[in-house]
Structure formats: structure tokens, C-alpha cells
């Protein structure tokens, strides 16, 4: 690779070129003719990525009408999840998280199916920093989080599904189920879980504790210090068109 610091140096290698094609949103809603509901789903997913002082308020406002119709929304969102291309990891994740946010007991079985679905073989075998299996596991741990929320709200079926997946092949999914059930389950659930882990020789999962970041060992970043004289402060955070978010 040619080292290049000056933009007017003749450049023999030639840079890459990119053509980006734009679509309005990633969803098809092939199974839903309710255009109003479909638009609400698109808006809620879009608002997940909000930025600015009012981002959370606006996201919650986008969720509210969906929660009022949670029963039918669960079906539409899950159908859309199943229709997504496998490699649309972020979009699939956003639909799973939306299922979780609905906090509707009707989401238990869709979330269970998401976790149960076989994880496809790794597509980025030569990479160490990108992994399709990791993306798939993240989608499933987010589904677990949805079950944990329902368990916390007393949905027994959610607790049963958490117990079932406490023996999942993937560590992160087992760990999330174990932590979630220990935190939100009833005494009988915890007893059954401990027995399961003992039987499987997987009691080590109980020792992985959720802690506050302030209790975790921190990184020591200061290899050297830039003199305040040469340090340039960033502009204020709110110069842009924040009012539009």
C-alpha cells in the first residue's frame, strides 16, 4: 500500500470505488396489509437508532401505539423476522428487540423459536473481528432478554423457556438464561436450574456475575499525555440539526 499523506501526490494504486443503492427500509411486510401498523413498525425500528437529548422520549413515543396493539404486532414482527435475509443481522436484531420491547406474553413462543433455530455455519471463517455466528448469538441473547423481561412480569411460560435454553450449545445463550432465571425466577425455578446445571457439570455459569461497569477492572489508557496547549477541543455536541430527530 502506498503511504499517502498529501492529497495531490500522484497515486499509482488507485482507490476502491463504491456504489450504494438506497431502499426506504429493510422490510417487506409481505404478510401484513395493514399499512398503518407497518409504518409504525418501521418508525419504531428507525427510532431505535435515535440520537440527541430527546432520542429516548421519541423512541418511547414510537413504541406506545405498538404496545397498544401488541397481540397483532407480535405476529407481524415475527413474520417479518422470518422473512429477512439471513445476513441482515442488524435488521433481524431490531425486530427481535422490538418483540422484547412489546412485553407481550404472546411473544414467548416467537422468542423461543428464534432461540431454537439452528445457528448457520460461520460465513467469515478467515476473520477474527467479524463473525456471523457471533451476530446470530447476539440475536438470540436479545431474545433471551425478552424472555427475562416477561419472566420478571410473572409470565410462567417465559421461565420455562429460559430453563430449557439454559442447556443451549452456546455459552452466551446459556449464561443469559441462567442469569435471567436466577434474577427473575421463583425459588422453584432456581432450584430446578441449579439441579440442571449440576447434572450437566455447568455450575460455573452461576459464578459469572452481572456487575456494574464501575466495579469492573478499568483500562489504563494514558500512555502519554497531550499538552493542553496542543489539544483541540471538539465543538459543542448540539450544533447540528438535532431538532429534527
Amino acid at each position, binding site marked *: 500500500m502506498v*503511504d499517502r*499523506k498529501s*492529497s495531490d501526490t500522484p*497515486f499509482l494504486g488507485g*482507490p*476502491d*470505488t*463504491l*456504489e*450504494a443503492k*438506497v*431502499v426506504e*427500509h429493510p422490510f417487506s411486510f409481505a404478510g401484513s396489509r395493514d399499512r398503518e401498523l407497518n409504518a409504525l413498525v418501521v418508525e419504531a*425500528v*428507525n427510532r*431505535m*437508532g*435515535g*440520537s440527541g437529548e430527546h*432520542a*429516548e422520549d421519541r423512541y418511547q413515543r414510537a413504541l406506545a401505539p405498538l404496545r397498544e396493539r401488541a397481540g397483532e404486532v407480535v405476529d407481524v414482527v415475527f413474520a417479518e423476522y422470518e422473512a429477512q435475509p439471513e445476513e441482515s443481522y*442488524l*435488521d433481524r*436484531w*431490531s425486530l427481535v428487540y422490538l418483540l422484547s*420491547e412489546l412485553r407481550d406474553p404472546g411473544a414467548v413462543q416467537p422468542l423461543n423459536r428464534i432461540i431454537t433455530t439452528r445457528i448457520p455455519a460461520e460465513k*467469515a471463517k478467515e*476473520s*477474527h*473481528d*467479524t*463473525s456471523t*455466528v*457471533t451476530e446470530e*448469538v*447476539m440475536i438470540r*441473547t*436479545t431474545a433471551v432478554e425478552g424472555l427475562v423481561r416477561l419472566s420478571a412480569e410473572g409470565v410462567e411460560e417465559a421461565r420455562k423457556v429460559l430453563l430449557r435454553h439454559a442447556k443451549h*450449545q452456546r455459552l*452466551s445463550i446459556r*449464561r443469559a438464561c441462567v442469569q435471567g432465571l436466577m434474577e427473575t425466577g421463583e425459588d422453584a425455578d432456581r432450584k430446578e436450574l441449579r439441579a440442571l446445571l449440576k447434572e450437566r457439570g455447568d455450575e460455573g455459569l452461576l459464578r*459469572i*456475575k452481572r456487575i456494574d*461497569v464501575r466495579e469492573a*477492572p*478499568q483500562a*489504563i*489508557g*494514558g*500512555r*502519554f*499525555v*497531550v499538552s493542553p496547549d496542543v489539544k*483541540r*477541543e*471538539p*465543538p459543542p*455536541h448540539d450544533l447540528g440539526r*438535532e431538532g429534527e*430527530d
Partner: protein
Amino acid sequence: MATCTYTVPDKNASGDNFYGGVICNQAYVDYFWNTYGFSGNKVYWDDGWGWDDCCNTNKPLARAFNGCYALTYSAQDYLNDSYSSAILNWGRRYVRENIDDLRSFCGDGSAIARAKGGGLVEVYLGFFYTKDVPGRAETLIHEARHQGGKPHNANFPTGSTFGSGKSGADSTWDYEGAWMYGALYLWWYYAAGARTTSALRERARQRGNVVIDNAFATHPGFSI
């Protein structure tokens, strides 16, 4: 020289729609361009990459700027970038001090980004289009840590989502390698990220946990 194409959804959860509305200001463009390694690398951000259309979040440069905005402003008290504060504060400083040149390429799909030594970091299509906005900040911190002198020093553990026994893991959390920096940044973003949503914070938590579970040869024994 390679030519690549990508289909970009205008509305999804990546955060680009909203961060994009904020970064379209000359003060930010100037700051990011001159602070995070873009300067002197115009040729790598031209030809469809967005140099002449730097507010258009369908294109890579604006999406990189979005990541830079998250990196710079996600701490409530972002002006404090002291190394005695949280990585949410000083992550931007660490990137600034370790990445001299940031260049975009199509890539071959086998990496999101690569630290090439000498302060040069390459970012590939996945950086712009598969990572959400905070995830791009995490990637810059990860690669900056490599530039700061910490290569991966272990193989991924048995059962790791990144591939059992493959090289590219860090031995322990205390090694303070690139995985630890990235996970710790995501952890702080989840716990204290400002000007964002609970959804992006939860996504940071989920990714951070998967990294903690799978990218260290010895599990740290905690989770987010």
C-alpha cells in the same frame, strides 16, 4: 483497485438517520476530518465513499462521521477526556492519539477493519453497513488499541463464536487488549451513554456480553 456495491436501508436501527442529522455541520466535519485520521487521505474517501457528499448517510464517509460523533460525544461530560476518567470519555482521545490515517476500502468480507501499523487503519464495507453507529466507535477503539501496541495474544476458547482455537483472542481481561477496550467501551455506553436510546444501549450490552464470553481465552468471570 476494487469496485463494490451495497444496498442501504434508509430507515433502520443503525442510528445513521439521526446521527446523520447532527453531523451535517462544518464544525463537526472539520473536527472529525482533522482529528481522527481522515486528513491527507481524501483519495480513499472519494469515488462513491462520500468525500463530496459528506452529509449523506447512505455513503461511507457520513457513516464514519456518525461513528466519530458517537465516539466524541457519548459521555455526558465529553469535554473531560482525562485518562483517569471512564473509557467512554477518553476513548476519543485514545483514537485521536493512535490513529493517524483512516482509509476506506471495499475489503473482501473477512474483516471489519485492520490496523496496519504506523498509525494506519483500514476500514471496510462492514464497518459502514453492518455496524451500528456506536459499534463503529467501538471498532475505532479496538483498532486504536492495536496501534497502541497490543496485538491479540491468544486463541479463542473452545466453543467461542469467533471460532474455537483460532488465533485472534486476548488471553485475559487484564491483558488490556483490543477486545477489552472494545467491550469496556460498549459496557460504559450501555451504562452511561448520553444522547442515545435505550435500544442502542441494550445493543451495546448484548454485543459487549458476547465479546466477554467469547473473545478471551480465560473468561473474565463477569458480565454486563
